[in-house]
């Protein structure tokens, strides 16, 4: 196993790389803010019609849910471009395989660096706008803050693991457009990005929140933050999905490498 300084260098490289895309960062944050307003008004109207509280969320909780999840989008990179798959398609992935670090951990280290930069920019911007425009929910328990931080890291790991496992299908398919489309379809509807999953008709909510990985990416950290439901159960669910997704990514990567066809000349 390579020394930790190698991983640390990769984390820093990821941070530095994304910190150079300044225009794109501003443009992306603007879009997150715009959709934050749209979603907040939608949720407020739904709560008003439902008598002030929607599926256990009052107005400050709904506003927090919407704005913090808008900030999380770029942080966990749920809809980012399938970079590794592109590298396999073009043949650039050769350099990833030549390095003395396992490709999955290598990419995860770079992704953590990317997330660190996103946390300072893309996460903060919508949260500040949301707080100024609507006022956000202040957690009642001090333990919520570390729990949310842990939940955020787990969300990042689950998202990375699932996405990398999906990207690895490129070794067999040579083009991931199909799997990526399916990913966007399901992760949009089932992660909590469109509406809090608890407003789904019974018995769907529990099924979607615990039985599928998507909720562990957005819904779970939001519930931890607004203190809806048992935080321990949410964190354990996320940890369980991370413990499935990451080994799955490593396994599929290994199987895929055997199938790998190096493209290009």
């Amino acid at each position, binding site marked *: 196993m390579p020394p930790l300084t190698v991983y640390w260098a990769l984390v820093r490289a990821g941070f530095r790389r994304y910190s150079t895309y300044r225009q794109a960062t501003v*443009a992306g944050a*603007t879009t997150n803010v715009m959709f934050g307003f749209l979603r907040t008004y939608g949720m407020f109207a*739904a709560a008003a019609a*439902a008598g002030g509280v929607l599926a256990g969320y009052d107005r400050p909780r709904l506003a927090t849910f919407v704005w913090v999840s808008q900030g999380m989008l770029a942080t966990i990179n749920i809809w980012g471009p399938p970079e590794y798959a592109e590298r396999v398609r073009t043949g650039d992935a050769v350099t990833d395989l030549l390095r003395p670090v396992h490709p999955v951990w290598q990419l995860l280290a770079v992704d953590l660096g990317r997330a660190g930069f996103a946390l300072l920019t893309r996460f903060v911007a919508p949260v500040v706008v949301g707080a100024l425009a609507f006022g956000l929910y202040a957690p009642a328990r001090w333990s919520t803050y570390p729990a949310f931080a842990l939940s955020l890291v787990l969300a990042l790991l689950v998202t990375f693991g699932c996405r990398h496992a999906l990207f690895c299908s490129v070794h067999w398919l040579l083009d991931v457009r199909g799997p990526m489309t399916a990913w966007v379809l399901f992760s949009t509807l089932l992660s909590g990005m469109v509406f809090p999953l608890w*407003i789904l008709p019974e018995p769907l909510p529990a099924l979607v929140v615990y039985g599928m990985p998507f909720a562990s990416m957005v819904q779970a950290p939001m519930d931890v933050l607004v203190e809806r439901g048992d935080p321990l159960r949410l964190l354990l669910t996320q940890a369980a999905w991370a413990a499935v997704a990451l080994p799955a990514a490593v396994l599929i990567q290994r199987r895929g490498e055997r199938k790998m066809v190096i493209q290009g000349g």
Partner: protein
Amino acid sequence: MAEYYRLFLAQARGQAQYRASFWFDVAASTGFGVIDLLGVLVVFHASGSLGGFTQAEGLLIAALAGAGFALADLVVGSVERIRNYVRTGLFDAVLLRPLGALGQLIAMDFAPRRAGRAVLCAALIPVTAVGAGVQWTPVRLLVAVLAPLCGAVLFGAIFVATATVAFWWIDSGEFANSFTYGGRDFSTWPATIYGGVFRRVFAYGFGFAFAGYYPALILLGRPDPLGGPPWLAWLSPLVAAVAAVVAGLFWRRGVRQYRSTGS
């Protein structure tokens, strides 16, 4: 015109060559349309009504706005790729040809594979109208047909106007999405749910209320809950025309601004 027609045809033929890919894209486009409508269904189901509109009325608004957006996306949606042309300098080649630049781009990137969503939403207009209990008159029939077309012109104008940002601001990336996809999401819901300044800017400033909300009010025979005068609901064609002219001006300024990559 014949040249554009031939470009369109070549595009359609080219895409139809990869048959499995083509049908997959059609299915995906339909899937995204279904997801949007599922979102509307779930939120209305949880809240009972939204902004003073029932679920059936809300679906009618979503279908009208969705059809307009999808039609625009089908024809000019690919114009958002202009940022790649500007960055790579490929736009030089477009300017050198003896055809209008915008017309060429639209013809070059025409995407019949995105037809799924347009067909779905268009088919849902009569279904949701019946569901919402629309009393049909010849005028309302005309409104039901014209509304998606006006919506398409409006969204098309937004696509073109926001894509021109790339001429000034090359790495603008997602910026245009705020107004194209943001506009779609805005017009999917009754305009009554939005607050103060935000509503004024997007419903009237950008005209998104005229894609779904106002045509639906005419079909339903309802006065504007926002207190607008009765003639306001009939302005959709005018709003679309103004938007198209403004987008045209943006485009001209943008093309003049264009400087090649100079490599």
